[in-house]
């Protein structure tokens, strides 16, 4: 089927589907399959984290104390908020109410960017405290603090690898959200045909779920 323009809205589903309903189910199932791969993609990091936590419990406990739990908590709240806004946007899409879709999507994008900003400040604080393994690390806390556990760099490595992969997924999510905002502003969605918003919603909620697990595992296991 030769689509004239990429976003030309047409009643007919893509040529290999029987009807629009089947296309909607297929795209959400496809996204769910992709999210399963993401679960295992982050799963490797969680498995390695727990394996090393069983080997060096003191180092990982001290690492959790080094991190700023209150920054992590606000970030979790921000991300849960953006997830809520995304859910409201999807609901608005199912009512084909273009103005509210754009409003809720903007809230989601703003909260998402706020999350990245808070994360950025957190990285800056850790850079300042010489907590970045390989790049800027000191075995003793700066300002004549007490000596750090020799295995603390391992914990900080996992902290940076896990949060940076998560931030990467956030950035991708924000990009796709901006595309959907453009679509919504051009009144592209109808009551039947709004599954791009749903699919992006699935992805955004998943990225939020990953952070829901990341926050306690990294910040709250302080014993």
């Amino acid at each position, binding site marked *: 089927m030769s689509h004239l323009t990429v976003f030309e809205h047409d009643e007919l589903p893509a040529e290999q589907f029987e009807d629009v309903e089947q296309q909607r189910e297929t795209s959400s199932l496809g996204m769910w399959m992709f999210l399963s791969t993401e*679960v*295992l993609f982050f*799963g490797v990091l969680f498995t390695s984290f*727990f394996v090393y936590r069983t080997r060096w*419990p003191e180092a990982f406990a001290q690492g959790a104390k080094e991190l700023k739990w209150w920054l992590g908590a606000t970030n979790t709240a921000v991300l849960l908020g953006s997830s809520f806004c995304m859910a409201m946007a999807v609901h608005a899409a199912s009512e084909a109410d273009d103005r509210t879709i754009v409003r809720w999507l903007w809230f989601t994008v703003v909260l998402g960017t706020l999350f990245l900003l808070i994360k950025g400040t957190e990285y800056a604080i850790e850079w300042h405290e010489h907590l970045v393994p390989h790049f800027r690390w000191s075995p003793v806390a700066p300002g004549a603090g007490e000596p750090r556990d020799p295995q603390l760099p391992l914990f900080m490595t996992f902290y940076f690898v896990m949060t940076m992969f998560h931030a990467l997924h956030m950035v991708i999510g924000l990009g796709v959200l901006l595309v959907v905002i453009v679509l919504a502003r051009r009144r592209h969605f109808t009551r039947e045909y709004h599954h791009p918003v749903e699919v992006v919603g699935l992805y955004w*909620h998943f990225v939020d779920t990953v952070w829901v697990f990341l926050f306690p595992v990294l910040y709250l*296991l302080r014993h």
Partner: protein
Amino acid sequence: MSHPTPRIYRNVFAALMGLLVLTVAAAFLPFDRVLPTPHAAVWARRITISIALTIAVVKGLLILLYFMHVRYAPRATWAVAGAGFLWLAIMLALTLADYLTRNHPGIPNNRGEPRYLLR
């Protein structure tokens, strides 16, 4: 109903915020000073990790079921969502099966002597 209403979204969001406060509070409970057993540090570590993970699982489920409409989705979506987490559980379980039984003194034989297997 095939789709959750905004009211449900608001309730779920409130629940998530409540659980966030709960999990942060639970992390600061002084288990290592309170527990009676001599190995307080170890039990404190185990209790905090189990509390933190259960609350995280509950929050994750809330997001999955309501925000991602899994509760109203066909069975295939349940299977796909479940498969991802089940395989993660397989990887965790069998990898830790190896790590937690290393240097284990070994199951004692019939006379109560540990078998002392090499690694």
